[in-house]
């Protein structure tokens, strides 16, 4: 043992004179680091209650609970996360995944509760709802920039080049490949917020899951539960579900529509048959359906599955309604529509073509011979523009124009075409005219952002060099030497006092006149109820030109059900399909008296 080793340790006595390493008493409060993972805060206005936080929490410490003052509505479940701090481990996965970015953490880390009662439920709280002293702290863990665990960009869909598609009726959207579809399906957080927004309440998260698991037969079964027109809807649906998608808040929504199309593109008609394996026994009851559009045929499908004998009366020579006669082929090829229809027909549904009820056959006849009647006749009476010169030759309606194109009749449009209106029919008419080689101008009363047409239709029309004239109120059309002189009054938007949408008001004297060969009017259409006998038309109730029905789509006459564009306000295919489905259930209940 050396003396050095005995003495040396005393050297560090000097530390006794240094500043202590510990904090002094009373305790100084030490704030957590800037990115400290402390207590949660939630911006409940931003939060939509998707439950991704609950899903990823590995401690099961998050519950979704209803909160006073937050309503359940489209795109918001009305639930908010409540956290059990007895289980939370502050890993912040909930913050990383939060698709809206509403959930964050502060750098506060002390929480004392006083009292000697039961503390069991003290440390459960709903961030952002319960008053906490850390609610307004700035610092704390936020998902770092450049760090995302979800994919917020869509997998790009291959679309035909503008130059190539402007004069072609070949389907322009190519559809996803297997790899693309699986990657797109992988982005979904399966929260299910979209289901309530879909008019047909399709089980979107489940069929997306089936895509991920590459089980397309199961996917088809899920689709047909609520929608026998999935192949068509996969192409032309107004996809309001995508607006409700939780990923939309900080990025791009899931391409739900294209995923549906992917499923249907990749199963053959035989596979549809074998995976659905629809079996039923006839119950001897007969149902008449007027109109072989998506509403009528989907009612036919679900009724046939329930064992009813269904006869559909169609005024035109082919089935499909607006899907065939309203939507141009480059968006929905007829073969694809036929795939949907053929499956429905394979269940024994009969369609009598070229029978217009009220003209070729009496409504009373059906009323007498069938147990129940469902009509879904669509809107076929174009609104009038109420301007001078509207009846001139060369002024045609959008519906008639699209009809003619479908039936292969030369629509006889000139070199320059004006399309009046801003809805989907207007866009389809404009883009179809474009494909006939015309220069097309869309004339619309309001602003571009007010157009009721789908955004992508507007964008694609612009890509195809369709000219848009907005804030233009048509005033008159004059014909001179085969040319149509179309005048409109330029307008300005005036905010409405009651908060309604801004209204276009004509600017006095500011009139533009341009010449066109053809003017297509597509400003909307109404239902044509002339087929109904007088006493029935009086019995049914109408409002704003639409038939009033109850939840099961039953009209004031208990034997008559109605659906589709003549009933619902949204007037799109998916709503009609839903009406058909609900009416089928309603008819079944009414006839079985349950």
């Amino acid at each position: 043992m050396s003396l050095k080793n005995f003495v040396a340790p005393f050297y560090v006595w000097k530390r006794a004179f240094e500043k202590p390493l510990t904090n002094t008493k009373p305790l100084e409060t030490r704030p957590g680091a800037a990115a400290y993972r402390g207590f949660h805060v939630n911006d409940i206005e931003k939060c939509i209650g998707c439950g991704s936080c609950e899903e990823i929490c590995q401690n099961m410490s998050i519950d979704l609970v209803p909160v006073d003052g937050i309503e359940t509505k489209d795109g918001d479940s009305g639930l908010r996360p409540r956290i059990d701090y007895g289980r939370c481990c502050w890993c912040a996965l909930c913050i990383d995944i939060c698709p809206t970015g509403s959930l964050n953490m502060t750098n506060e880390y002390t929480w004392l509760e006083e009292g000697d009662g039961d503390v069991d439920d003290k440390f459960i709280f709903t961030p952002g709802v319960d008053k906490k002293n850390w609610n307004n702290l700035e610092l704390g863990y936020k998902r770092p920039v450049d760090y995302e665990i979800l994919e917020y960009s869509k997998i790009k869909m291959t679309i035909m080049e503008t130059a190539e598609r402007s004069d072609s009726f070949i389907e322009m959207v190519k559809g996803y490949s297997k790899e693309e579809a699986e990657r797109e399906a992988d982005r979904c957080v399966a929260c299910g917020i979209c289901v309530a927004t879909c008019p047909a309440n399709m089980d979107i998260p489940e069929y997306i899951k089936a895509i991920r698991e590459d089980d397309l037969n199961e996917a088809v079964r899920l689709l047909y539960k609520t929608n026998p027109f999935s192949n068509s809807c996969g192409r032309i649906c107004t996809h309001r579900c995508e607006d409700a998608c939780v990923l939309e808040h900080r990025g791009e929504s899931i391409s739900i529509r294209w995923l549906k199309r992917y499923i249907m593109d990749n199963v053959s008609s035989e596979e549809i048959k074998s995976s659905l394996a629809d079996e039923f026994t006839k119950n001897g009851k007969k149902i008449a359906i007027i109109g072989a559009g998506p509403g009528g045929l989907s009612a036919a499908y679900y009724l046939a599955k329930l064992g009813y004998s269904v006869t559909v009366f169609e005024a035109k020579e082919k089935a499909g309604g607006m899907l065939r006669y309203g939507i141009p082929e480059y968006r929905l090829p007829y073969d694809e529509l036929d795939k949907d229809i053929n499956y429905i027909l394979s269940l024994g549904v009969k369609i009598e073509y070229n029978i217009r009820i009220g003209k070729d056959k009496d409504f009373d006849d059906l009323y007498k011979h069938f147990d129940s009647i469902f009509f879904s006749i669509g809107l076929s009476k174009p609104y009038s523009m109420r301007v001078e010169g509207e009846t001139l030759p060369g002024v045609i309606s959008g519906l008639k124009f699209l009809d003619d194109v479908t039936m292969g009749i030369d629509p006889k449009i000139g070199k320059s075409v004006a399309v009046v209106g801003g809805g989907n029919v207007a866009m389809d008419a404009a883009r179809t005219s474009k494909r006939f080689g015309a220069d097309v101008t869309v004339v619309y009363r309001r602003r571009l952002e007010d157009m009721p047409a789908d955004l992508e239709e507007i964008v694609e029309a612009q890509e195809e060099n369709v000219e848009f004239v907005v804030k233009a109120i048509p005033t008159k059309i004059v014909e001179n030497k085969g040319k149509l002189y179309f005048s409109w009054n330029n307008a300005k938007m005036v905010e409405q006092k009651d908060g309604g949408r801004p209204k276009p008001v004509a600017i006095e004297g500011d009139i533009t006149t341009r010449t066109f060969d053809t003017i297509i009017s597509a400003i909307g259409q109404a239902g044509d109820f002339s087929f109904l006998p007088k006493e029935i038309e009086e019995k049914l109730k109408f409002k704003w030109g639409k038939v009033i029905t109850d939840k099961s789509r039953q009209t004031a006459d208990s034997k008559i059900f109605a659906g589709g564009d003549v009933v619902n306000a949204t007037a799109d295919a998916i709503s009609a399909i839903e009406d058909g489905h609900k009416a089928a259930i309603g008819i079944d209940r009414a006839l079985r008296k349950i």
Partner: protein
Amino acid sequence: MKTILNSVKNIEQIFGVLAKKIQRPDLIFITVEKKQVLSVLSHLRDIEEYTHLVMITAIDYLEQGKFQILYLLHNYKNNTDLGVKTFISREDAHMYSAHHLWGQVATYQRELHEMFGIDFPGSPRVNENFALEGWEGIPPMRRDFDTLRYSQETYNFRKGRATNDPKKYMKKNLHKE
């Protein structure tokens, strides 16, 4: 210097290898027959210089009715890892004891016996508890032991916990039926 591939080749020639997976240049897994395991381990340790036993572990392949036992060895001369795997029946789960080869083997075998219910006859103290004193019920690392059910049966959840599924909740509230 011997390479890992040489060693694997030797094992293949002498004892036979049922399957081989080259995971990385310095990590290979081989599967051998149950009865060959001890000979392979001794050979690797004494001849091929795999002198360091990294660990022994098991996987329960419930759906195939098998346990996989993995002996992971390391060679400090060429710094490679060699995993020796074998499959044993789940019904009659026992394996030859290798406690004489390395000092820590007995501990691993004791743990595997406790956690998986794999018996190693002859291994010292193999029937003693390792981490689970007083444990009753099936060995907990077996796949058919459900941890969630166990904790629900054994512990109480905090009062007032209840959650809602957004999809179902919205269906209930938005009445699109």
